[in-house]
């Protein structure tokens, strides 16, 4: 998944360079920060193999280059190998974003044969106990074993760590684990608070002190390990005083297709309930990208309000994240409240100080079908 820090500052000439296909919302894990919609269970009519292939062909014609297969857990789709083969033949650079559950040597070899280029494997802790507590399933040993198999099969690999107050103190241990596994990249992705992560925000948000320590450990490791291990660090955006250049701008270079065929400018955008997002079952992808009202709603700068409209940095951060503006201020056209110039910045400051003064711990709301419940471990 593209993030700040992945070299995204890029002129796509108006093309959706990054295509992300969420093959399914189904997943055996129950991560309480899942980026899927809280009501993911409502969307059951997944695109068929042939429908996905049509999306891949149309995306390539629109100029898409990087392709991410994700979910849910994409390994749950039995046609993944077939889709990877189609994508490779079309000329995509294919990435698999997985929890590792459902991966085995046989499928890895089939994926390699189909032309898969890279695998991003998530890991949530450096030990079995904490990992199980965070994902709701005993999968730690499998993740480690499959990481070694991925390397043995010759894939470049990103180890992705979703960072919260629960695991941020283990930054150095994660780096050691990554170096031991021989992966090329480790990515510390401080959680961004949408959907399930938003439900659990008070529990997951780390303190300033934790962040500072973790950043110092990353810096020391970069100096020590040099080119052996590339460490990406996705900054926690609440703690910045300028918003992230989210998605390089709305409808700029990024296109996500949800399991039911809904086309989105980012993986979270369907949480903006006022926008009707087009579906590949009803419209050509070309129309969706270039003409649909949803993709044009926040394209460019004409939609901006103050303080963005007259801001000298609007071409740098595009006013930040539309979803975050919507969630915190009720209007997706407002300045991202992370920005120090936003009149809503105090809302973010309150969340940060809430993390500092937090006393009692509540159970995490684990990702499950049906209505979200506080059933998780303490």
């Amino acid at each position, binding site marked *: 998944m593209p993030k700040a820090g992945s*070299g995204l500052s890029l002129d796509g000439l108006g093309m959706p360079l990054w295509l992300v296909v969420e093959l399914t919302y189904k997943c055996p894990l129950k991560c309480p920060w899942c980026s899927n919609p809280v009501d993911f269970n409502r969307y059951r009519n997944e695109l068929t193999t042939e429908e996905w292939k049509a999306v891949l062909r149309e995306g390539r014609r629109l100029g898409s280059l990087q392709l991410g297969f994700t979910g849910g857990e994409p390994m749950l789709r039995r046609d993944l190998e077939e889709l990877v083969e189609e994508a490779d033949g079309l000329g995509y*650079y294919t990435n698999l974003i997985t929890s590792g559950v459902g991966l085995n040597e046989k499928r890895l070899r089939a994926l390699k044969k189909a032309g898969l280029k890279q695998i991003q494997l998530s890991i949530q802790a450096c030990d079995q106990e904490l990992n199980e507590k965070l994902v709701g399933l005993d999968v730690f040993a499998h993740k480690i074993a499959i990481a070694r198999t991925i390397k043995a099969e010759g894939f*470049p690999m990103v180890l992705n760590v979703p960072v919260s107050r629960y695991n941020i103190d283990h930054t150095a241990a994660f780096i050691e684990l990554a170096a031991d596994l021989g992966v090329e990249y480790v990515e510390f992705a401080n959680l961004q608070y949408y959907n399930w992560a938003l439900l659990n925000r008070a529990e997951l948000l780390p303190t300033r002190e934790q962040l500072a320590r973790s950043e110092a450990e990353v810096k020391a490791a970069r100096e020590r390990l*040099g080119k052996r291990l590339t460490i990406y660090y996705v900054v926690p955006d609440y703690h910045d005083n300028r918003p992230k250049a989210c998605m390089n701008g709305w409808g700029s270079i990024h296109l996500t297709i949800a399991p039911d065929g809904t086309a989105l400018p980012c993986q979270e955008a369907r949480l903006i309930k006022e926008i009707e997002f087009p579906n590949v079952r009803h419209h050509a992808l070309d129309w969706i990208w270039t003409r649909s009202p949803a993709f044009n709603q926040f394209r460019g700068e004409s939609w901006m309000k103050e303080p963005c409209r007259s801001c000298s940095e609007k071409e740098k951060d595009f006013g930040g994240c539309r979803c975050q503006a919507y969630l915190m201020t009720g209007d997706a056209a407002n300045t991202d409240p992370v920005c120090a110039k936003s009149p809503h910045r105090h809302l973010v400051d309150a969340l940060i100080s809430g993390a500092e003064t937090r006393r009692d711990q509540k159970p995490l709301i684990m990702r499950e079908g049906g209505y979200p419940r506080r059933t998780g471990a303490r």
Partner: protein
Amino acid sequence: MEAERRLRPEDVVELNPNYHFRWEEPQQAHVLLYPEGIVKLNQTAAAILEACTGAPSIADGTAELSRRYDKRNLGAEVLKFLEVAHAKGWIRVKS
């Protein structure tokens, strides 16, 4: 950072195997594709990468560029760009 010596004309360099280098028609440019990333190269950068990775040495690649573009004394410019490419991990020295 690990102590790394500077590149020399006699070095043999190759593309990092995790990078894919190719012409991308819609962009009308050469691109480097790698895990989670895209780099769009300008003409000069693409020409240097193309000539020097896979050549028997950087000096041979440079000579090829000189012939192709009818330009002399390209050595310093080529090395300067390859240093950048090396630092970014796009290429590596073949041992």
